[in-house]
């Protein structure tokens, strides 16, 4: 079962690479991604009452937390690969993309999904590192897929900054390995389960340095300040389905790595040091996002900075660290992925039909393209935390948990930042969506685009109203991080 999760995108990628490219191949990617979602659900259902599953001689391991992340990856990847059909159609029609390029795109997207799945299913912290580094390598070409000067610039910054970050994370991993070897160990000194079991014996000085490097290093890929500067460029320049995947899941897959290390650091150091570190990076991210969102003129960059804000919120939630907080963090990971995925996909359609990503030059979208404008508007509502969308529930619970553990002051600062961001995004959104129509008749949005996006928003609202399909899984996953 665990291997099947990885085989689906592998098969999808191989077929797209070997068979001469035609339009149907894009749908194959969607099928593979949907298969990942289904296997994620099956994994979750199997694991919640039972024990974690292992595969490949202990290299892969799936517990409730992994299963939850597989579901998140599967959902967002389904939406993104669905929209990829539209992206490739449009690029081919405009003559910007050859069949070879389209095939390369399909292969890389599947490889991207597979590396993320490997990261959340790795039992060994070294393999986790290898998988996250591989996501950087795979996505660089996807960011630069349009081959324009600015998209190549974005991919250069992306790979350079993320390589540095990931090197720091490797050093952190080596230090954890050193501490583990020093304790005397089982056969697998980098195995997460055995590290957690012996975490109280690990040398605190070394683990302190290691956890700081991990937060800084994987934090680069999460888009946490101070290593966030690649994010707005890469997310605004990548093709929309790739932006949706990067912003919706890749950031949180990197955060998943921090969560795994946090369990070890909590055991070795007690909760104070990890909490302080996460509060610092979380608040810095919120402050930077708030100040830069005010002046954005580009709607894709606006969405990108909004991701920095949400990663800051998630870091604060993880800092609180109680089971309530972690459950809220995980729900936020799913809700943010859905809302941000939908918004990036919608922004791709806006860019395609309007030809510009400047907010000023796309007025009155709601009256000119009612369906697309409506999707974008509801997506913004979801992202800003309006009920009934799930981000409302998760933000409320994260704040509650922060007050409970004595981080009330941090929660208050984050509320102030959220208020500023709320005002900024509402003002940008009003400019983009409202206004007089002019003389043209309203234009329709193809069902190919509208159906997955509306589906994503409905899903986000559904889990906000009723948590029952996820409740037991979230509960089990939260207790892995916060025992």
């Amino acid at each position, binding site marked *: 079962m665990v291997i099947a999760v990885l085989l689906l995108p592998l098969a999808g990628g191989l077929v797209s690479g070997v068979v001469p490219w035609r339009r149907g191949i894009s749908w194959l990617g969607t099928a593979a991604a949907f298969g990942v979602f289904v296997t994620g659900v099956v994994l979750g259902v199997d694991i919640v009452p039972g024990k974690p599953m292992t595969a490949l001689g202990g290299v892969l391991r799936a517990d409730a937390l992994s299963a939850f992340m597989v579901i998140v990856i599967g959902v967002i990847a389904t939406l993104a690969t669905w929209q990829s059909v539209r992206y490739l159609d449009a690029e081919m029609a405009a003559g910007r993309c050859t069949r070879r390029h389209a095939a390369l795109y399909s292969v890389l997207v599947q490889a991207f999904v597979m590396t993320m799945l490997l990261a959340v299913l790795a039992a060994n912290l070294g393999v986790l590192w290898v998988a996250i580094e591989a996501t950087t390598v795979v996505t660089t070409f996807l960011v630069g897929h349009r081959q324009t000067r600015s998209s*190549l610039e974005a991919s250069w910054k992306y790979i350079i900054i993320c390589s540095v970050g990931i090197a720091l994370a490797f050093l952190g991993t080596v230090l954890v390995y050193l501490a583990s070897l020093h304790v005397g160990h089982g056969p697998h000194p980098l195995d997460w389960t055995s590290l957690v079991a012996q975490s109280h014996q690990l040398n605190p000085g070394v683990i302190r340095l290691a956890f700081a490097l991990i937060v800084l290093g994987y934090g680069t890929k999460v888009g946490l300040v101070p290593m966030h500067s690649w994010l707005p460029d890469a997310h605004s320049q990548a093709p929309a389905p790739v932006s949706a995947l990067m912003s919706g899941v890749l950031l949180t897959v990197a955060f998943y790595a921090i969560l795994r290390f946090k369990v070890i650091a909590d055991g070795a150091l007690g909760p104070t040091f990890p909490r302080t570190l996460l509060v610092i990076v979380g608040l810095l991210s919120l402050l930077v996002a708030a100040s830069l969102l005010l002046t954005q003129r580009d709607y894709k960059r606006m969405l990108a900075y909004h991701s920095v804000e949400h990663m800051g919120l998630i870091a604060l939630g993880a800092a609180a660290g109680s089971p309530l907080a972690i459950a809220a963090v995980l729900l936020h990971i799913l809700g943010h992925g859905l809302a941000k995925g939908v918004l990036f996909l919608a922004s791709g359609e806006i860019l395609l039909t309007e030809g510009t990503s400047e907010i000023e030059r796309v007025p009155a979208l709601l009256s000119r393209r009612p369906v697309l404008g409506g999707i974008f508007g509801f997506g913004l509502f979801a992202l800003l935390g309006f009920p009934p969308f799930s981000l409302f529930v998760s933000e409320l619970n994260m704040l509650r948990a922060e007050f409970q553990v004595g981080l009330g002051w941090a929660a208050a600062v984050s509320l102030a930042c959220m208020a500023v961001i709320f005002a900024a995004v509402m003002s940008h959104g009003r400019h983009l969506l409202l206004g007089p129509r002019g003389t043209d008749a309203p234009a329709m949005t193809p069902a190919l685009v509208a159906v997955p996006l509306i589906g994503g928003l409905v899903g986000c609202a559904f889990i906000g109203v009723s948590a029952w399909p996820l409740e037991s899984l979230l509960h089990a996953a939260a207790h892995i991080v916060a025992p």
Partner: protein
Amino acid sequence: MSASTYTSVLGLAAAAVLLCAVVTLWRRSLGAIVRTLAVQGAALACVATVIGLHEHDVGLIVVGLLVLGAKALVVPLLIGRVVRRDPNSRETDPLVNVPASLVAAGALTFLAFAATRSVASLVPTTAGRLIPIGLAAMLMGFFALVTRRKAVSQIVGILLVDNGVALVAFLATAGVPLLVELGASLDVLLAVIVLRVLAIQLSARLGSFDLDQLTELHD
């Protein structure tokens, strides 16, 4: 091998890694910088092999040979091709000039020794005492990344960071498990290939390999 030869060979090889990092900050010719990087890769391979011989660890000797092939041969060859395409293959105008860079290199070495005390106390071996050298090489890589403006110099900066971290890993823990080591080497190799392709595509768009012209994206 006897304990004293082990100590001196290991010390020499580790020092060579650091020296090469300093030389990359000193030289301006990109060709020379890439050759220095190859020497550094060979020194790193030597560290792994010597520790492997000392600890009778066949896996680590294999890793040493792997590092030799990847970091002393393949990677420098790949980058060298980019250098030859560039008509102006000199780092003419770094943000921090060469004498100041060398002073900074000295300061970074002190910093590395200060920062690794808690780690070094955990590894009371010959190798453990050399850990700060790896960290210093890594910090010099960061410095090159921040202050150099040619595409090739930035790739070299990334590799200096990577070699520094690898040196720490060999010295502190006799390398990471083989599976992880293989995955990590493959990732680095792929990253260099991606960077090479990107550098060539960028130079085609910009008309040069100078990254000063990367100014389209800002807030």
